[in-house]
């Protein structure tokens, strides 16, 4: 009885690894950012303007928009970082395993 290779998972492709790592780590960072930011700032106070934007009518909307905004920004940073790192080998820096 041998564990055949066909039922072993193939490693994820580089692209898939990048997307997985960036989406997940930026999600964690966005959770932290949302928590820290909204502990200090009440979304309703951000709207104390005379003409509050429609999306700031309730706290839940504020939290929701805030969370996705942070997630988006962190993901942009993550994708840029991974793109820069993967295209860096041409600069002459030798990295182990490449």
């Amino acid at each position: 009885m041998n564990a055949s290779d066909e039922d072993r998972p193939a490693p994820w492709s580089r692209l898939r690894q990048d997307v997985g790592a960036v989406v997940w780590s930026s999600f964690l960072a966005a959770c932290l950012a949302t928590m820290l930011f909204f502990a200090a700032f009440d979304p309703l106070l951000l709207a104390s303007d005379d003409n509050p934007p429609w999306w700031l009518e309730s706290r839940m909307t504020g939290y929701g928009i805030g969370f996705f905004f942070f997630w988006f920004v962190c993901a942009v940073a993550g994708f840029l970082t991974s793109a820069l790192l993967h295209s860096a080998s041409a600069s002459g820096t030798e990295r182990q395993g490449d």
Partner: protein
Amino acid sequence: MNAPSGETGVGLYAAQQKVYPREVKGRFRTLRTASIFVLLGLFYIVPWIQWSGRQAVLFDLPARRFYIFGLTFFPQDFFFLTWLLIMAALSLFFFTAVAGRLWCGFACPQTVWTEVFVWMERVTEGNRSQRMKLDKAPWSLHKLARKSAKQVLWVSFALFTGLTFVGFFSPIRGLVTSTFTLSLGPWETFWILFYGFATYGNAGYLREQVCKYMCPYARFQSAMFDRQTLIISYDTARGEPRGARGRDSDYKAKGLGDCIDCTLCVQVCPTGIDIRKGLQYECIACAACIDACDDVMAKMNYPQGLIRYSTQAALEGKPTRILRPRSVVYGLLLLGLMAGFVVAVATRAPIGMEVLRDRNALYRDTGDGWIENVYTVRILNKDAGPQRLLLTLEGPEELSLEVETTELQLEGGEVKGFPVRIRMQADALRGGHEIEIEATSRETGKKLASGESRFIAP
């Protein structure tokens, strides 16, 4: 512990194949099941517990206050949450240093929910070989029935999980009622679906791929390891050279070790590694290989523990020490933080207070010889019960405090603003002066809180 190697070029575009972990029985399987029941049990039951008329554990984000049994926390208490998170991180360091990836195998939501989804898959699609056969078979009524049964179980469990999760933030009894009357708010609906979908995708499909490719802890935990950390390891000295043999054959005469190369340890592994190649960062310490191997060893009448929890030191024949600088430092830090946390929560000021100066006027001349400054004293009662308060003024003796309402009373968890005036005889003082308003309990006469501001004279 291996760093992720750079061999990612292999199969750059290879399609993801499914892992079909073989089910296993044994000591560690039982322990994992017990841990899953306790943790998921807590998750699904806690939102239903009531405490003096409201949900016992409720992170009421719309109202910006957290209820945890008798305690109410406000954004001003954010410090406690930070402290709690630091404690959680430090416990993870401590347990990792002493017992390896205990978290991964027994407590991580990713593995815990995956186990439930795998169980549902087994109930509907059968065991490992039945599942592999079913996936290869062409579509038929039988296949459709089994696959849809699995999806029904998965989707309903995922939605229930999403509902429970949102139930920590919005009273769960109301949520359930609104679900059945189709009157859920848009954000509640959204977050239930969001969390439900994340559970479905992570536990149903991604599973241990999350641990392998996405989890930061998996990559960093080796930094907390040392030679005395408990790890799951294969006893190479005893097992090698591996090879097939008859049950009662004199394998030692043939020069074979105890490993019969049945590959069961590989087949049960949810991350698909071969523990016999040594410790790998993909290992989530679920101990399925220990159970599988112990079973085989018993059948062969060999002593158990060819794969076992051990330490690198023990495998090299050196003594294992639980007490060592790393574990002692992590442990003491953790104990210190815990003790501090308990003391801080227990002695937490029951009243929070802010003194806000009226922004519209620096001072007011009442016209009958008095100069007045106007303030709002914002008080929040963090206690569960009501508070009756008395305000007093600390500052230059020329000043006196006038409170509009003499009866300062706040219900448990209430936040209220009280207008107050501080006045002096005209020309008694000049310029700005530091003042402090103190709140004392009417019952005990104890000073509970204070807030600072300035008094401005012409």
